[in-house]
């Protein structure tokens, strides 16, 4: 007892003495050492590229691994990755990739085409339960192998031609196939290490632990403390190692955005993952050099349950959309540079420019509502607006509620549900209007417009149209970019006329970034390959 209390007093005293310690990361020192400290949202659910989904996972995995095609830090092009060059056959179905001669794994092994065959086979193995398996359904026989009707993987469209080249055969000419190859589920895996830790289907994840994980990207895993920090160190065996200037990246999983912002302000981070709404305004009003606001390939929208009265009437849906003051919503409420939406697909994808307009026209809206039998909102049943819990979603929903009450005289009840309950309600069609968002996976209008095909896995609106579905099918085989874009435009126009969804604004990414960080350019998909980043200490 005596001894114990002595120990306690010592602990207390040492706590008090070290008060002057300041923050745990001395940012200037980190910058000089080329150590990049970055907030990374919620803790990643894992490092197995086939078993995870989500943005924080993408950030980590794409620094540890590399696919055939590299991400362009400035935008939209295709850069060499593991493949130094590629050829596409005339019919658009056969791709041949030539590998970098010195592409290596972090343990020094060469990266060979078989590594891709191994990884893709694993992704398409149904017993693994990979959520992104469908990305490779574009491969010839990919779906057949997955659902078990084809047992022999040799008939699937991927094969090693030589130790330096890989041939990929597709089911249809898929114009955005190279874009998919930038995405982490299609990256190669190191067969040897996976097999020595229980084989491709083992579920204990031993192979992804620090010390065990063998990766082929510019960085390798050094440390991974759950809910604390994940450290990646430069990989000396990387084929383009001379390009890589950062020595180390520290990913901090931070649940609370308030905490993250405070950490940044106290000098513990080079970059935050996000920024609370009201902080955006505060930083902007003081003209902070830290604040970054960049366009982002995503759309915020309200989905309407067209199977339910009164939303089964197209005129009511149109009225709701016309009475939506997108400009006011964006300028007075969000204030983070978002653009009011005029289409479902955000602008900026290649040469596809959506031509639809979504005007704010209260008179026309009232007229349509009256035609539908609810003049001035009279007799309009009380409808529910569903959103998932969260301070900002609540604020936005309250604004929408007020907008429709003021403009159309209709009453909307707000319903707030915990995220998983909200997902379940949406899926089972137990909602009338629900907030929603969609972020593009790759640069193609299809990643947005494919949502609304009949029986689409993410189409909860109950709306479908045979012409719409037909046009989408045509885009999958159409090789001419102009003709393909024309099809997308027709789909867009139909969608905006039928209004199963009310697009509100195109997303922006608002976050904080220290000026020391170099090579960090705006990019529509918000991917900032760590390979090109470096830190420049401020001039003394």
């Amino acid at each position, binding site marked *: 007892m005596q001894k114990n209390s002595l120990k*306690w007093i010592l*602990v207390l005293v*040492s*706590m008090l003495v*070290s*008060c*002057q*310690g*300041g*923050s*745990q990361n001395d940012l200037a020192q980190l910058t000089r050492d080329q150590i990049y400290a970055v907030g990374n949202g*919620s*803790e990643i*659910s*894992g*490092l*197995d590229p086939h*078993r*995870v*989904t989500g943005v924080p996972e993408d950030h980590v995995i794409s620094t540890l691994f590399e696919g055939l095609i590299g991400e362009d830090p400035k935008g939209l092009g295709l850069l060499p990755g593991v493949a130094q060059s590629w050829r596409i056959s005339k019919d658009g179905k056969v791709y041949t990739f030539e590998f970098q001669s010195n592409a290596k794994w972090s343990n020094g092994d060469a990266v060979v085409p078989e590594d891709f065959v191994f990884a893709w086979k694993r992704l398409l193995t*149904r*017993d693994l*339960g*990979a*959520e992104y*398996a*469908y990305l490779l359904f574009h491969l010839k026989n990919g779906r057949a192998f*997955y*659902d078990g009707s084809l047992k022999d993987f040799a008939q699937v469209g991927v094969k090693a031609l030589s130790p330096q080249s890989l041939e990929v055969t597709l089911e249809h000419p898929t114009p955005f196939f190279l874009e998919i190859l930038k995405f982490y589920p299609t990256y190669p895996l190191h067969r040897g290490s996976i097999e020595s830790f229980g084989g491709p289907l083992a*579920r*204990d*994840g031993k192979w*992804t632990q620090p010390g065990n994980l063998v990766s082929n990207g510019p960085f390798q895993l050094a440390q991974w*403390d*759950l*809910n*604390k920090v994940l450290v990646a160190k430069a990989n000396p065996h990387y084929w383009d190692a001379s390009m890589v200037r950062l020595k180390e990246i520290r990913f*901090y999983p*931070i*649940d*609370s955005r*308030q*905490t993250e912002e*405070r*950490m940044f*302000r*106290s000098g*513990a981070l080079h970059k935050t993952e996000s920024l609370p709404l009201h902080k955006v305004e505060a930083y902007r009003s003081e003209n902070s050099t830290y604040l970054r606001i960049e366009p982002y390939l995503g759309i915020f929208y309200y989905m309407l349950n067209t199977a339910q009265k009164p939303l089964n009437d197209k005129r009511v849906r149109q009225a709701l959309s016309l009475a939506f003051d997108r400009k006011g919503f964006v300028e007075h409420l969000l204030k983070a540079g978002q653009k009011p939406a005029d289409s479902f697909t955000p602008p900026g994808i290649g040469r596809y420019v959506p031509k639809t307009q979504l005007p704010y026209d209260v008179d026309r809206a009232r007229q349509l509502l009256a035609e539908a039998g609810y003049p001035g909102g009279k007799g309009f049943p009380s409808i529910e607006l569903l959103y998932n819990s969260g301070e900002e979603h609540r604020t936005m929903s309250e604004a929408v509620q007020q907008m429709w009450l003021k403009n159309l005289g209709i009453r909307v009840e707000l319903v707030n549900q*915990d*995220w*998983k*309950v*909200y*997902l*379940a*309600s949406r*899926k089972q069609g137990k909602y009338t209007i629900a907030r929603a*968002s969609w972020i593009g996976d790759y640069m193609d209008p299809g990643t947005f417009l494919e949502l609304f095909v009949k029986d689409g*896995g*993410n189409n909860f609106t109950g709306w479908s149209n045979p012409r719409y579905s037909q046009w989408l099918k045509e885009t999958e085989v159409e090789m001419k970019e102009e003709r393909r874009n024309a099809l997308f435009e027709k789909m867009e126009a139909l969608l905006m006329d039928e209004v199963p969804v009310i697009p509100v604004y195109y997303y922006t990414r608002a976050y904080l970034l220290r000026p020391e960080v170099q090579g960090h350019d705006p990019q529509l998909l918000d991917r900032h390959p760590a390979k090109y980043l470096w830190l420049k200490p401020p001039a003394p």
Partner: protein
Amino acid sequence: MIQWAIRRVLQGVLVLGFVISLTFFLIRLAPGGPFDRDRNLPAEVQEKLLETYHLDQPVFQQYTNYLGRILHGDLGPSFIRSDRSVNQLIEAGVWITFELGVYALFYAMVIGLTLGIWAGTHEGTWQDRLAMGMSLLGMGLPSFLLGPLLVWIFGMKLGWVPVSGWDSPASKILPVITLGSVYASYLARLMRTGIVETQREDYIRTARAKGLSEGAILIGHTLRTALIPVMNFLGPAAAALLSGSFVVETLFQIPGLGRFYVQAAFNRDYTMILGTTVFLSVLVVTFNMLSDFLQMAMNPRIRLQEGGDLS
């Protein structure tokens, strides 16, 4: 005594069984499963996932399987953190939460008992009112308010301590204060009441009449009796500290068990919710039992009461 102890332990086991069963069926009632995401998975993938984690079996069979597994100490794989098992996750978080809880309890006892003794021995004076006012403030300030406030003052404005983390001793000060203050307030009140009441007892008066010094009476007699309700409070408080630390852990970015727990609840990570519940209830039940035993040892009179129902 031994018989009473055995009965108490058996009761504890029953309580555990009840808690596990209730939680098991309750989380199955919650809408949304572990594999529901913003983007829906193709039906065949979803099916496969359910099969992999045996979620396609009848619920009752899952339940018996689960009970069988925990008897072997295996809490199963985490559904969300696919690279880890629940045992590993608990192990990763529990020591930090434990450390946080121990410091907070220690802080609460030092501050709470000091304030309580001070107030109790100065009953009715301004010292008493000041101490009790502070304790009232501590009880009324929820941790989600106290935490950001402390960070803002001592972390941001004054820059004395880090705003987050659990590394350097300095980074541990604010979380400990945030977590411990409520308990310090309760302890202060308990202690004060105990002292005030004991001082009215006859034997204290006798001691005083004998001419013993106030200090000697306080240490030799009053504290002994006055500490009983405090001891009584410590068991449940220790348990509550362990299970209630997640707000503090989230605010200060501490990688403890509380955060895992809440993340699991929101993600519907069934095995992780259950595993942590099992783990925490074992702790709660044990702490309550220890607190009972301790009281028994300190105050033999209680033995006469049937069943030994002590709060």
